[in-house]
């Protein structure tokens, strides 16, 4: 939709009218839900509150804060995965569907490492040391997986029509998922317990935040800062941006395009590895399917934030996390929908549609090379 349609006046067809109608309806529903929610919070006997949902009870302040915190924490992890999607999309112009599996491999290798450490008692006796070891292992595994994936499956396809590598990545995703299933079995694998000082809740600005979530947010912010520094301030980053802009010209300027692309995958993999560890430590249970839904959600987040835009990926992740955590309670419940938590994923995907309907290039705009902007 961002296409620059030179010389061809766009036909206004019934589809456009339909879309306009859809936009209005969606906005009206969201607004109605929010109004009813606010009305509920003020007083449950209020006619606005009882309009669609006479049983409405509203939420207490602490509950609302809890939703915000969990949404942001979940969103930061989506953001970390989304960075990989976004970078690869920016440089190569295709969705690496299998990136969610890179994340899962990070979480799985973290499980194997932490479990071995825990069996030796090292996890308990020296948490910090073990944590570093586990993170390093997860990053190494994820990075290696991403790089191998690029070499084996994507490099030969670099000049194919863009749907070809996308379909390939779906195959890669299935392959990795089921390979891990075969290697490690179908049961869910539990991380060892975090030490008490880290896991206990902290009160920050009147928000009661569980320690794991503090850790998630801090680590995500730090990783983001490092990544930003790499991309914007180092020579490598410059090369990446150049390759993203135009591969051929970048090559003419003496940039090793292959190496840069491998680096892009490696950095994306490392971020997914960190995301995987955080996921494992905060939810403690991982299976071979751990990467699938978060992967899809993270890509959704990348699109919401604006593909190719690193800040956008992080922001998109946090917005999506917040939307799926708050949306059901703030919009659907007041509208009289029952069992709203079940519809959380539906809310997330609807959020994607809503964003794309209003801003086809995402909330913060895309940064793509010239020929990807179709």
């Amino acid at each position, binding site marked *: *939709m961002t296409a620059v349609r030179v010389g061809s006046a766009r036909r206004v067809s019934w589809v456009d009218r339909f879309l306009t109608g*859809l936009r209005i309806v969606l906005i009206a529903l969201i607004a109605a839900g929010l109004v009813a929610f606010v009305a509920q919070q003020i007083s449950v006997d209020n006619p606005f509150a009882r309009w669609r949902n006479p049983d409405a009870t509203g939420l207490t302040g602490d509950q609302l804060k809890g939703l915000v915190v969990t949404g942001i924490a979940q969103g930061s992890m989506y953001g970390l995965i989304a960075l990989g999607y976004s970078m690869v999309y920016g440089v190569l112009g295709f*969705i690496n569907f299998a990136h969610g599996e890179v994340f899962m491999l990070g979480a799985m290798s973290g499980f194997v490492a932490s479990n071995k450490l825990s069996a030796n008692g090292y996890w308990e006796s020296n948490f910090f040391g073990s944590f570093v070891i586990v993170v390093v292992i997860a990053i190494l595994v994820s990075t290696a997986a991403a790089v191998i994936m690029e070499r084996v499956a994507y490099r030969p396809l670099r000049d194919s029509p863009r749907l070809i590598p*996308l*379909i390939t990545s779906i195959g890669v995703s299935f392959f990795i998922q089921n*390979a891990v299933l*075969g*290697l490690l*079995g179908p049961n869910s694998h539990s991380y060892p317990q975090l030490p008490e000082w880290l896991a206990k809740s902290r009160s920050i600005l009147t928000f009661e935040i569980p320690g794991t979530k503090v850790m998630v947010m801090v680590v995500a912010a730090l990783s983001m800062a490092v990544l930003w520094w790499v991309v914007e301030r180092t020579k490598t980053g410059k090369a990446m941006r150049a390759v993203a802009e135009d591969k051929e010209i970048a090559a003419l300027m003496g940039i090793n395009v292959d190496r840069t692309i491998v680096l892009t995958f490696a950095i994306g993999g490392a971020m997914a590895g960190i995301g995987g560890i955080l996921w494992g430590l905060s939810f403690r249970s991982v299976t071979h399917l751990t990467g699938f839904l978060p992967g899809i959600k993270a890509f959704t987040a990348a699109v919401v934030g604006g593909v190719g835009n690193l800040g956008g990926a992080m922001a998109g992740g946090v917005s999506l996390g917040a939307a799926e955590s708050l949306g059901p309670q703030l919009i659907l419940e007041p509208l009289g929908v029952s069992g709203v938590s079940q519809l959380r*994923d539906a809310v997330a995907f609807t959020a994607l549609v809503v964003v794309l309907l209003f801003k086809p290039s995402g909330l913060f705009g895309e940064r793509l090379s010239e020929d990807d902007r179709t």
Partner: protein
Amino acid sequence: MSDTAPPKDLFDQDWRRIVRLGAITGLSLIFVALIGMLVQLDTRLIIRRYLSLGYLTIIWIPVVAGYLVSKEVVLEGVTPNRKGPSDVLAGALTGLVGGAGLSLLVVLIDNFDIRDPLINWSPQLLDQLTFAKGIGFGVVIWLVIGAGLGLFGSLSHVVPPLASRAVNTALFTIVSVSILETAITDLLQGFGLSFVTDVVYAKRGALTLTSALVLGAVVMAITVAASGRGRELRVRYDALDAPRRKTANLGLWAAGVMVLLVLPLFLGKIMNELLANVGLFVLLALGLNIVVGLAGILDLGYVAFFAVGGYTTAVLTSPNSPWISPQLPFVVVIFVVIIAAAFVGLAVGAPVIRMRGDYLAIVTLGFGEIVRLLFLSDWLSPYFGGAQGITNIPPVDLGFAEVKGSDPRSVFYLVLFFCAIAIYVSWRLQSSRLGRAWMAIREDEKVAEAMGINTVTAKLAAFVVGAILASFSGAVFAAKVGSIFPSSFLILVSIIILVVVIVGGMGNIIGVIVGAVVLIGVLGGPKQPGLLQELGTYKLLIYGALLVFMMLKRPEGLIPSARRSHELHQEEFLQDAWLRGEVDHDAEAGEGDAAT
């Protein structure tokens, strides 16, 4: 390439290549062993007492490696060496290095216990790798087997091509006949030829060694005897003039239809059930073929339309439907299904139609999930039954016959009817104005629009036609199973249909049908067992690997559509043309779409 240089010296080897390929082989072997295929699939026998599916999953690897190591890309202007003993040695060495991988695994399993976390690092695996004859034997035997298999693989470079083809065909036939055991037994029984079954297969399944050897010999003889006949036939077919070719085509089609109509009568329940399931997927794949193959829209939420068809049928026919329960006859319902599917197709299509190809993929995937979640939700359970689904969907009463799940033959005929509609629709659309518009859009949307094609309408039409075909499949599915649950409509279904379309050959009707028959029939669908039902969860692993392999090696599919194949290999075509000095010729000249 008539002129070749003399063969290389025996020890003039590309050592790096051998070690590299050998290492890859070894790692692959270890991987296959550790994901448990060797142990889990050992129960399915290929040749009784001599070969199981488990061992088959590993022995092909060194063979292929042995073949690949001496296969070289022949560049223009470089004279290749004639193949000779050095290539055989290279093959054997590669196999040896690969086999060493398994030997290493034997030693490792014997000395270390990492069963936690690797669940297949087990005594059973060790037993199976050493043939229960001790560690030393296990180590040595894999070196020998590896080298032998590698050598066998490389032989095809040095023996006459006909011999190697005969051997390949024989091996392929033996494995196929063994895999198709259920089908063949069933068919023979239907024709009253059960005694043949007893001759070919062992009493408790799988080929006997004798029958395998005899079969191999016969096939080899036939291959040699019939060598060249196939091409001859092809040449004769090509030489026919247009009207006679048309007659020949018609004859082929008629023969195919006759076989499909008559065959089920001779088949038992198991095979008819399999055919009915395959038919449902053929229908789905034909529908997706219109969306992805013709119009180039990557719809990853295609299962949504399957679900809409199923649920519409369930709500309107079942007495247990929680909402309205009109209990309409199927023949009426099918029209409602068409309307519902078209409506959902438009509703899903309209918002996504202007999106970029890959955004569209993720958004349609989202829609697929949304539809499933809505059917599952407690919110809508007063209408669609939620987690408990809708049960007691009655059989289809056609007046002259009843189609019900316990009679898979009737289901197959019903599916066949809808498949015929789908094939006809696809075939007519392909060469229609709309079909050409789709192909133009697939190749370049901007150009298509500039040419005056209303891309929005054309793409929406693709969505709607695809949706209706999928909903037919859903309707028959609901009537066949007799109950419907949201768990039948996972993302996985969309992906498997996509694999079927791609492996078969995007854009080609025959290709898509072949894809569905081979994949769903042999490997099985998401919840439908195929002939190799022992594969269990490895099915999805194979689907994934197959998808990657096809995309890398043959993106146009098993039976490609000529046009699509040109698109994908445009550069190669241009290069070839350039090499031949035909640079002025349009690469597309002389192209004829196989399916038109």
